[in-house]
């Protein structure tokens, strides 16, 4: 199979990399770009571990081909923050112990970064619904919901 050039902007950096068109976007990010923070949990679009932002909207990178990233702007978990300068969402997850093994966490972080912008999230049930596209096997979700609640309250200027 013939490789094609894929030009994209990832976490603010524009680059061109060759890949076979059939390669999954998740594998492209991990194998070709070395961005292994995006995890692959099912390869059929259910678990949400591979969630990235594609042109500002969350997407399952395991359901995209690398070729679909051509010309796109992509944000992965590596683009949110670094260990020394964590994003506010990452800090809230740490404070509330909203991760254990950490495998599903990058997908959750990308989803949370979106729903904080798009969803009202008035009740904890709203938060649970908004998170229901991401599977976590460790936390039982309770601490994730608490972390998101804190972020929503901050966003809304509510003192809980």
């Amino acid at each position: 199979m013939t490789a094609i050039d894929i030009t994209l902007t990832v976490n603010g950096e524009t680059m061109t990399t060759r890949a076979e068109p059939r390669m999954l976007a998740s594998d492209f990010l991990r194998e070709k770009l070395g961005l292994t923070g995006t995890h692959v949990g099912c390869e059929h679009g259910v678990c949400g571990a591979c969630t990235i932002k594609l042109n500002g909207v969350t997407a399952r990178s395991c359901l995209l081909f690398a070729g679909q990233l051509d010309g796109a702007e992509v944000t992965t978990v590596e683009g949110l923050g670094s260990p020394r300068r964590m994003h506010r969402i990452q800090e809230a997850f740490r404070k509330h112990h909203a991760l254990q093994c950490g495998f599903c966490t990058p997908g959750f972080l990308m989803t949370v970064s979106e729903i904080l912008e798009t969803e009202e999230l008035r009740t904890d049930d709203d938060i649970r619904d908004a998170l229901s596209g991401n599977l976590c096997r460790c936390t039982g979700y309770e601490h994730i919901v608490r972390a998101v609640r804190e972020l929503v309250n901050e966003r809304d200027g509510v003192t809980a």
Partner: protein
Amino acid sequence: MTDAPPADQSQTVRPKYIGKKVERFEDPRLLTGRGLYSADIKADRMVHVAFVRSDQAHARIVSVDTDDAAAAPGVIGVFTAADFPELPELSAPSAMKDYHATVCPVIARDVVRYVGEAVAVIVAQDRYLAEDAAALVMVDLDPLGATADPVAALEPDAVALHDNVPGNKVLERVFETGDAPGEIAKAQHKVSARFRMRRKAPLAMETRSYVAQYDSGRDQLVLHTSSNTPGVVRDELARLLNIPGNRFQVVSPDVGGSFGGKGSVYPEEAIVAMLARDLERPVKYVSDRLEDLTSTSQAFDEIVEATLAFDKDGTFIALDAEVIGDIGAYSIVPWTAALEPVQVVSFLPGPYRTPHYRGRVRGVCTPKPPTGPYRGVGRPAAVFAMERLVDMAAATLGLEADEIRRRNLVGPEEFPFRIGSGIRWDRSGFLECLEDAASSVDVADFRKRQAEARKRGKWLGLGFGTYAELTGIGSRIAVAPGMPINTGNETASVRVDATGAVTATFATASHGQSLETTLAQIVAEELGVRPSDVTVKQGDTALTPHGTGTYASRSAVIGGGAAIVSTRSLLKRVKEAAGALFDVDPDTVETGDGEIFVPETNHRITFPELAQAVYSDMKALPMEARKPLEAQENFDPYLGTTTAATHVAEVEIDSETLAIRVTRFIVAEDCGRMINPLVVDGQVHGGVVQGIGAALLEELHYDDTGQLLSATLADYLIATAAEVPALDVHHLETELPENPGGFRGMGEGGTIGAPAAIANAISDAVAHLGIEVQELPMTPNKLFRLIAEKQGKD
């Protein structure tokens, strides 16, 4: 002004870290995509593996034609059993009577015994090319017939899966105290049922992943594995592949959950290690989700037929049980097939006084993937069956669920208490947890709500699940009977290096348990430094001579115990060196917050300054006082600790759709002294939600021919955030167990209590229909059938 006695100097100056909500040291890397899971590993010249797996459950291999695959683009090699003259065979020995170890070649040689068993392995330049080639392998299988149902598999006409397992019965064991059958025969009150807990998947979010790298120049083999038992993998593969341990390193880097599924020795681990050595290239294998659901060890598939006899006051007299455990095709290595089903009969009597007990278990081979360890091992099924019987007994006498438990739980003054299976309970908050849980739910108010809701077409139910478990088990008790592996000890080594930094090394292998933080908290508190000053190293067989890993709620108790005794030895050395430096009695030296000092004097230095004096400065101390600041001690609790809890679930069932929702969940548990309350809560939450899955959603559905019908995450459902209520966890500390830290293991309890509590809640909700739960998971479909059957009979 105060009359309080002067505070102990060491208490006032030394901050306490055990019991604090310390934020995890694992988190900065895991939150930012900087973790390193096995699948993230890359190496020059690395090759990739794909497996060709059996699509039949039980068949003779007639031929495997690999010619087309071998000629496919990018293929480096195609291997079948025939290509390995010394093909390793996995087999789990045991000294247990009436047990037959099965033999599993790491690639099927003559016969396949489950759908998903590896038949051939492709090595190619990348995984895509390897999978392309795998599709070209022609496997000719001659069906041998399959008896997938475990009861049928015990019948004389069943198809035998192994020549050396007569009648498919891989093991049999009986526990007996008193005369249960005799007492039951003459008892006035008794309840009986046949309970079924369906086969499920551990389903870690990270699938099994392995990378083997071989340095031929040094003859050194390194296997990075998603295992939570790297020490077990090292010992077993070193033996099978005939490599000494000093030239074979097994590393568990960041691991994305296990729940038992990554805690056994797998054929694929042996294969990538062999191939890396043979090909002299790094070899990587990452299983996909289909492979995970069809080749990772599976969880509890049991039938429990049990009878409980009791008197008119609800006091239990006798319990009798027949258990059949469907162990799948092979006895899991190294734990053996006894691990899961035998513990069902071990734990069935539960936290109650039941003078007469008889429990018999038979393990049956069927053509399915092996069952193995899964969070809670044996206890989820045992507690489900027993707690249902308890509620059935209560209903017979018109007692509330909490009252019958109150009358039968082992009381605080009765410990140590030996139950009919021989398990010894030590003091733990059996009654205290029950009382806490019961007082958190207003039963009278609930009954009112229940009656009102029924008018609206909503069936509400309240259910209790009370249990006790053994955790942190020492060397006296093998985690599975007769298994020749010591899982009961941990060795820690703690050192202060020349820079004054503290490193603590363990043979544990965290896969989400937060041990880099909790063990650091323990070492920091004992040594008198800050937790952030301590780096915990684990999950690497090169670091320790022996050790098994993290599983069975052992690491806080045994690893934590080793941390305490080792750090105390190190502290003695620190005080000796500082005493020599200060020219004072070492016993007057104190440590705290990273400093070493003598109270009420000017003697005060930091750990780096002490390290400088001991290691680098050749004038500050005489030679004999310059002993390395390092200590290594072993800890073995010999017996285990008893952890207890009561779970309460409230459910709501829609009478039209029969959708079942858990609307409230309370856990009251006694895990002794908590190291980090955030971590304890997180473990309880996660366990409970897996228990909700086991109760309502998760089922590996096999058809009569041994084909898996729920082989994707769209068919095999686990709970999402939307199916789970807010979880309310109450920690009780009754009397601390007699181990160095006062810790009890608690990583599995959630999964143990929740299925029983939910089964009882559903039974309560549908009691007015004359039906009850005897099988889990209970789904709307199954509930519909139960109602229809009942209506058909009436």
